[in-house]
């Protein structure tokens, strides 16, 4: 049922256009400064008032990296000055204390994720202090299925770190690899051996981590079938429970680090598609399932199982098995999703630091969702997690008549139906096998703001 989708180069080429990734709907460009710390306190208060307040997910952003990877589009600060970790942690501790006060103590933390940047820029002692601080201010769930995950850069994982993480309660790790091809590694300024990567994977397994995810990227400068094929073989041989295969989005006008990439080494659209095809073939030949939106998992992994029983969800931290929770983000650029609201901390370090130093909650911008936003967010979530939209469910949940409410959206969807990406019945709109690689495009048909703002073309990365 969730096998790897077939590969149709012609279709993918035609639909390779910029589009949001929908880690949130509405997407971050809709957030405004009218939503600040007062609004944040209000949504937190209201969320505590639910008869069964949602459980909590915590995200902590660590922006620092020792070395700049040229492909990076994340929010990060390159430094070798390790003392910055300590001063950053001091402010995180204050932010955690201030924010935690807004949430009732009986709301269990079911999910914790450390992302970056490079979370392991903090040493094991500092990571321990961070987790200890969180556990003092929040109540960590002791449920079997709680997810404590961390992104690791294998090049900087010191001996003993993984064991220490396991003792802190971490049970999932995500490792950046991108490509093992030495030529590609040189072109993107990320030299990383198979051996040091394997060592971290082994350590995670030895210390009882429930899953290991590996990130790869296709479309990097200098990539080719032979090299990427070897990378895929090597990675698959380690049997990561989960795999993410992202498309490289070259947007040097938006992401400064990318200006260091030699554009002569970039791939033609044709060659880039060829790499995706290769990845899909190799993964389907080795038993992986396609979860959706760049993500693959082994059939026995919890994500695959959750998708089978309709229990898959997605938030800023990716796919998850946990039913909806309120998400609180800490650190520079972190995003929160509380009740029917989104909010984001300042993206630059000085602004975030200044807010904390002056005793304010560092909320930079955000938005309260209206009824239409909530409905469309629900629809897109269904599409991303179940590959289909349940028309009747949306009608009852949101008090609408689907066909008339979404008349314009369905017009936009018509060409996709004609191309066999989508099937529409009376009760479901389903992404076909071909459509599953283009969920972003299907979702885009239902994005109210995307069609208001057609004038700004280059804000989102291309789909493939």
């Amino acid at each position, binding site marked *: 049922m969730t096998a790897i989708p077939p590969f149709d180069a012609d279709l993918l080429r035609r639909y390779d256009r910029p589009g949001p990734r929908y880690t949130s709907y509405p997407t971050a460009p809709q957030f405004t400064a009218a939503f600040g710390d007062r609004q944040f306190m209000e949504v937190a208060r209201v969320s505590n*008032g639910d*008869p*069964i307040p*949602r459980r909590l997910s915590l995200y902590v952003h660590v922006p620092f990296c020792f070395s700049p990877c040229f492909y990076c589009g994340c929010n990060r600060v390159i430094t070798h000055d390790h003392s910055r970790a300590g001063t950053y942690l001091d402010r995180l501790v204050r932010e955690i204390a201030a924010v935690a006060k807004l949430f009732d103590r*009986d709301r269990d933390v079911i999910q914790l994720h450390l992302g970056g940047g490079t979370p392991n820029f903090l040493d094991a002692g500092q990571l321990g202090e961070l987790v200890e601080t969180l556990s003092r201010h929040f109540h960590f769930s002791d449920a079997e299925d709680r997810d404590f995950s961390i992104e690791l850069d294998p090049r900087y994982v010191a001996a003993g770190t993984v064991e220490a993480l396991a003792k802190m309660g971490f049970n999932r790790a995500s490792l950046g690899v991108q490509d093992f091809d030495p030529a590609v590694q040189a072109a993107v300024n990320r030299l990383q051996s198979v051996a040091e990567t394997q060592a971290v994977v082994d350590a995670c397994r030895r210390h009882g981590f429930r899953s290991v995810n590996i990130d790869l990227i296709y479309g990097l400068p200098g990539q080719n079938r032979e090299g990427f094929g070897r990378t895929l073989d090597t990675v698959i041989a380690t049997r990561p429970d989960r795999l993410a295969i992202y498309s490289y989005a070259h947007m040097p006008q938006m992401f400064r680090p990318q200006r260091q990439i030699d554009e002569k080494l970039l791939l033609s659209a044709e060659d880039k598609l060829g790499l995706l095809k290769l990845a899909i073939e190799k993964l389907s030949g080795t038993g992986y399932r396609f979860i959706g939106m760049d993500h693959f998992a082994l059939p026995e992994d919890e994500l695959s199982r959750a998708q089978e029983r309709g229990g898959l969800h997605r938030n800023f931290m990716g796919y998850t098995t946990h039913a909806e929770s309120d998400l609180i983000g800490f650190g520079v650029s972190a995003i929160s999703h509380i*009740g029917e609201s989104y909010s984001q901390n300042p993206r630059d370090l000085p602004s975030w630091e200044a807010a904390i130093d002056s005793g304010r909650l560092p909320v930079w911008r955000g938005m*309260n*969702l209206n009824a239409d936003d909530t409905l469309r967010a629900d629809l897109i979530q269904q599409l991303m997690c179940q590959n289909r939209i349940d028309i009747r469910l949306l009608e009852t949940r949101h*008090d609408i008549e689907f066909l008339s409410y979404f008349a314009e959206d369905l017009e936009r969807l018509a060409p996709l139906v004609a191309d066999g990406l989508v099937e529409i019945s009376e009760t479901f709109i389903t992404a076909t096998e071909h459509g599953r690689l283009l969920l972003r495009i299907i979702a885009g048909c239902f994005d109210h703001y995307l069609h208001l703002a057609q004038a700004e073309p280059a804000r989102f990365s291309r789909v493939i």
Partner: protein
Amino acid sequence: MSPAARRRPSPIADDGDELHFCSTCAFSDACLSQGYDKSMLADLHVLVEHVGPFHEGDHIFREGDDFQAIAAVRAGTVKTYVLDRGGHEQVLGFHLPGEIIGLNAIHHARYPCNAIALDTVVLCRFSFPQMALLAARMPGLQQQLFRLLSEDIGKAALLAGDYTADERMAAFLLSLSRRYAQRGFSASRFHLTMTRTDIANYLRLAPETVSRVLRRFQSDGLILIDRREVEITQMSALEQLGRSVLRD
């Protein structure tokens, strides 16, 4: 508007006009059965006026304010409460569309409690002295007033007994369900306009207990809860639990 209020509009009564009562009016049956329509009431100088909207957190009256009118809720939910000597809030009740607030003020001519809007509230206000005069001439209206008064007293007494948390919670949900149903709204699906702190305070339980009991009701298949939307999926099981409190 707050996110909670935005999710689903609370039930609102059909608007009345010069001649017709609003669909949720607490007195229309009593008046109409006596042959009085709205224009006749106006002739009798019973001032009936719509006031509001009040917004979430607005006070409608405060303890000690002069009492001149009783009011029926047309839309939204009103919470009444008093503050004890330590300044702690004691929730007295929640008033849904069609229900009357201010009945407990009749005796002293001052409001003995505070009333606050939990969402967007519109009221229908009746000047009380004229109403009382009219009741003397209209037995149906008098009976209706007595009925409302005794209901008001009865409601408060119900939770004074020695009931378990499960019984209190079940009775609370059933009471909301029945009151909504009485006004023509769904008995099995409704929006909780009060916070869990308010519910806990009203039921004399800890907020965590409210959530724990509801979570258990949910896992036992009695109810479904999504944020503040409640669906009762096994009415009979809930009635079993709430029976002793509601004295069915």
